[in-house]
């Protein structure tokens, strides 16, 4: 199907463009984003605070629709079908589905990506960084359209081939590279480990101070890839305020809390029913099952190690029931 994007040629009275993709329309004003879609009772309008919408949109774009489900909130989101993308409203909220007020449409990935990038570019004002914590980026997202922030929304995700810091691989963060220590981690020691390789292993073993690496993270809720073994990805990250999406994964995902604390709200991936609250403190490890969606809340900037299984074969194994949605049964 082709649901061509229509850009309204004239911006609205406060300067923002409106967008259309398939049956959905998107508008924004000083405070809110308005998403509309057709229902049996006429067009439904859903409101999201513009800062929350932009933070979620930033992740969906930067992560290339991520693993399966990215919920911007309890109503609107996308499902990555790995080649196509579903966009939905109310389809994973049993209140909407029980009333028949939900809509899901499927698009070619390049098509929806182009529209999402255009929305993000037009609706992000100068001075607002959707990857930053609120205390860092303030309230520039509000009000009439005021410039843009292409540098912030266009920066690359940090990914390594084997391990950050290895010769020829992604470099470590430093003051010189524009990664100062975040004020929240001013007390984190910056010493690097000494490496004494046995003869024959020089250049083949490597180590970094992971806490120092993370203390220089310039983004929140945006895991970088710091080491790779086949399809096992270690993705450490720093988290502050609210994970801008509710992530419904199609595989098991592991979290190891390295510092401070994160409170997680866990919901059923299909209905949105509450399933659990998890409070993670330093040293805690948790696996997020493949049949839930999760959202984290960090009152202070926290260090978290996310362990992802990138093996594409596990999706089918979960979907067919060949393996359970959790890694261990008690």
């Amino acid at each position, binding site marked *: 199907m082709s649901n061509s994007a229509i850009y309204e040629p004239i911006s609205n009275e406060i300067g923002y463009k409106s967008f259309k993709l398939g049956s959905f329309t998107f508008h924004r004003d000083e405070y809110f984003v308005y998403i509309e879609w057709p229902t049996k009772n006429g067009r439904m309008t859903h409101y999201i605070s513009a800062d929350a919408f932009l933070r979620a949109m930033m992740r969906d774009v930067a992560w*290339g629709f991520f693993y399966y489900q990215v919920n911007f909130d309890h109503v609107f989101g996308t499902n*990555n079908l790995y*080649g196509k993308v579903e966009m939905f409203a109310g389809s994973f909220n049993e209140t909407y589905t029980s009333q028949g007020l939900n809509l899901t449409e499927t698009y070619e990935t*390049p098509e929806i990506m182009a529209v999402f990038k255009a929305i993000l570019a037009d609706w992000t004002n100068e001075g607002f960084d959707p990857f930053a914590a609120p205390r860092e980026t303030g309230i520039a997202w509000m009000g009439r359209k005021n410039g843009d922030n292409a540098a912030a929304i266009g920066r*690359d995700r940090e990914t390594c081939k084997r391990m950050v810091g290895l010769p020829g691989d992604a470099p470590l963060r430093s003051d010189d590279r524009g990664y100062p220590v975040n004020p929240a981690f001013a007390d984190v020691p910056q010493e690097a480990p000494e490496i004494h390789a046995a003869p024959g292993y020089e250049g083949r073993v490597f180590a970094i101070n992971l806490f120092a690496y993370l203390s220089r993270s310039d983004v929140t809720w945006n895991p970088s890839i710091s080491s*790779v073994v086949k399809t096992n990805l270690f993705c450490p990250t720093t988290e502050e305020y609210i994970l801008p999406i509710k992530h419904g994964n199609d595989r098991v995902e592991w979290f190891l809390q390295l510092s401070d604390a994160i409170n997680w709200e866990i919901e059923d991936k299909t209905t949105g029913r509450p399933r659990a609250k998890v409070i993670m403190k330093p040293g805690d490890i948790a696996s997020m099952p493949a049949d839930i969606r999760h959202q984290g809340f960090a009152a202070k900037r926290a260090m978290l190690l996310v362990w992802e299984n990138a093996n*594409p074969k596990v999706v089918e194994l979960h979907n067919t029931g060949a393996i359970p949605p959790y890694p261990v049964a008690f």
Partner: protein
Amino acid sequence: MSAIPVAPGTALCRIGQMDDPGAQEYHAGASASVLVLREGERVTAYLNRCPHFQIPLNSRPAHFIMAGKGLLMCAYHSAVFRFSDGACVEGPCAGSQLTQVAIRLEGDLVVAA
């Protein structure tokens, strides 16, 4: 550096059997494949492994996503690569590179060099 999983002289595909622009996959064992890209007369080949998450660029056998003139998009997280040099020009691993596989043409046949 990733090892190239095909021996020199291995026939990978025939240009005449490819779309233009188009992509074809040559399976080299159970866990590796080579991606052959064609645009007009220009043919290039790379390991079929996205540098973002080290997984194949396609989610379905023999199905690759074209993302505009001379561009291919990874099915998983939308990284966009140039046919001509394998550079990732957009997406979550922008600035990275597909691993090139040296080829030569023997008439219509694309052969690992």
